[in-house]
C-alpha cells in the first residue's frame, strides 16, 4: 500500500481549476518532489495530503484511507509539516515549539523534554544553548532546522515540506539539503517536498512529479526526468544545464 495516493484529485476555486486530475502515488520511505513553476498547483497538491484542503473531485488517500474519512486532527498530527520561514510560533521558546505536537498529544512532561533534547541534537542545535531561545533569536537556517525538528517531534510516518529552503542563502540551503539526505537515511520517512528549484529536486527526489498549469506533466526518477522528452521537463532541464 502506498503511503500517499492521489486518485484523479482535482481542486477548484470557483470556476478556476488549480489542480486537474492528479493521479500519483508515493511509496513508503520514498521522497516525492513536486516540481513546477509558481502557480503550477504543487502546493495545492501538498495541502491535499494533510487535509488543509479537500479535493473538489477525486480523492487523496493517506495510508489507504481517504482524507475525507480521516479525523483531520488525527491526520495532521500524524504528518509532519515544514513550511518556508518555518512558521514557528514567535511567542514560544524553541523547546515549546519543538515539543508542541507531543504536548497536544498529552505526553508526560519528562518524556517531552527528553524528546526535545534528542531532536535538537539531531538537527545540530544542542538543547543547552538553544532550547530556551525564541525564534527571533535564531538565524534563518537555524529556524528551518527547528522547523524540521518540530515536524519530527511526534515521530510521524509522513513529512511534508513546502519550499522549506526557499528563503535561505545558497550556502545554508546546501547545508540543509545535505542534512535532509542524512536524516532521510537515518529515519526512512516518507517525504513529499515542494520546490521550484530543479537542482534541489534532482538532488533530493526518489521520484519527481512535474506539474504544469495544474496538470501532471511528468512523473519518474531523476534519471528518467533527465531523459524526458516532455516540453515542460525540457524547460526545467535547460535551467539545470545552464546553471
Amino acid at each position, binding site marked *: 500500500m502506498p503511503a500517499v495516493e492521489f486518485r484523479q484529485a482535482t481542486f477548484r476555486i470557483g470556476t478556476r481549476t488549480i489542480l486537474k486530475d492528479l493521479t500519483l502515488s508515493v511509496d513508503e520511505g520514498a521522497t516525492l518532489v513536486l516540481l513546477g513553476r509558481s502557480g503550477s498547483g504543487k502546493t495545492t497538491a501538498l495541502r491535499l495530503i*494533510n487535509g*488543509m484542503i479537500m479535493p473538489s473531485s477525486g480523492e487523496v488517500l493517506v495510508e489507504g484511507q481517504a482524507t475525507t474519512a480521516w479525523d*483531520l*486532527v*488525527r*491526520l*495532521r*498530527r*500524524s504528518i509532519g*509539516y515544514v*513550511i*518556508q*520561514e*518555518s*512558521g*514557528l*510560533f*514567535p*511567542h514560544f521558546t524553541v523547546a515549546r515549539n519543538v515539543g*508542541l*505536537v507531543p504536548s*497536544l498529544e498529552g505526553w508526560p512532561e519528562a518524556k517531552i523534554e527528553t524528546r526535545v533534547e534528542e531532536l535538537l541534537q539531531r538537527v545540530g542545535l544542542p538543547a543547552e544553548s538553544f532550547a530556551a531561545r*525564541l525564534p*527571533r533569536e535564531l538565524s534563518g537556517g537555524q529556524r528551518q532546522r527547528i522547523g524540521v525538528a*518540530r515536524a519530527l517531534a511526534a515521530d510521524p510516518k509522513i513529512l*511534508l515540506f513546502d519550499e522549506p529552503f526557499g528563503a535561505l542563502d545558497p550556502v545554508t540551503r546546501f547545508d540543509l539539503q545535505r542534512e535532509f539526505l542524512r536524516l532521510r537515511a537515518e529515519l526512512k520517512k516518507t517525504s513529499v517536498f515542494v520546490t521550484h528549484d530543479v537542482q534541489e529536486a534532482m538532488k533530493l527526489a526518489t521520484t519527481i512529479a512535474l506539474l504544469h498549469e495544474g496538470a501532471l506533466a511528468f512523473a519518474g526518477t531523476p534519471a528518467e526526468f533527465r531523459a524526458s522528452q516532455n516540453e515542460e521537463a525540457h524547460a526545467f532541464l535547460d535551467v539545470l544545464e545552464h546553471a
Partner: protein
Amino acid sequence: MLSDILQDLLDEGLQLLGEHLVLVLTSILIAAAIAIPVGIVVASHPRTRTLALGIANIGQTIPSLALFGFLIPIPFIGGIGQHTAIIALVIYALLPILRNTVTGILGVDPAVRDSAVAMGMTRAQILRMVELPMAAPTIISGLRIATVTTVGTATIAAAIGAGGLGVFIFRGIASVDKLQILAGAVPSALLALGADAALGWLERRCTVR
C-alpha cells in the same frame, strides 16, 4: 480652621476616589467581558465585523452628557445613580476594546496560523495558544485607551448622581471654587496617568516579537 476644611476635603475625597474607582473598574470589566469575546467571534466574519464595529462606533459618537441624560428616563436600566452611569461608561469603553481585539486577532501572521492548523491544533487550541497570546499586546492597548478615557468620562457621571470625583468638579463649578475643581481634577488626572502606565507596562510584558 483651615486644617479642618482640608481634613473634610480629604475625607470626602477618599470616598469619592473610591466611588470613582468602582465606576471605572466595573465599567471596564463589563466592557471587556462583552467586547473581547465579541471581537474574537466577529474577527473571522467580515460582515458581522463591520456591523459590530459600526454599532460600537455609534455608541462612541453620542456626547457623554447627552447619553447620561438619555438613559435616565429608560425603565430598569436607567434612572438616577451609579448603575446608569456604568451602562453609559460601558457603551463608551466598548469600541476601543472591540476594535483592538479584532485588529489583534487579524494581525496574527497567516503562516503561523496555517502551521498551527497543519500541526493538528483544534480551533480552541489555536485561539488559546496562538491567537490570544499573539493578540494580547493589542488587546491590552485597547483596554488601556478605554480605561484612560473612562477615568475622564466618569467625572461627568456626577451629573446624574453617580458620585465619583466629578462631584468635586461640579460643586466647584457651581460655587466658583477653584480648590474644589482641582480636588476633583487632579486625582482624576493622576488616576488616568497611573492606569496608563500600569497597562502600558503589561502591554510591553506581553509583547514578544
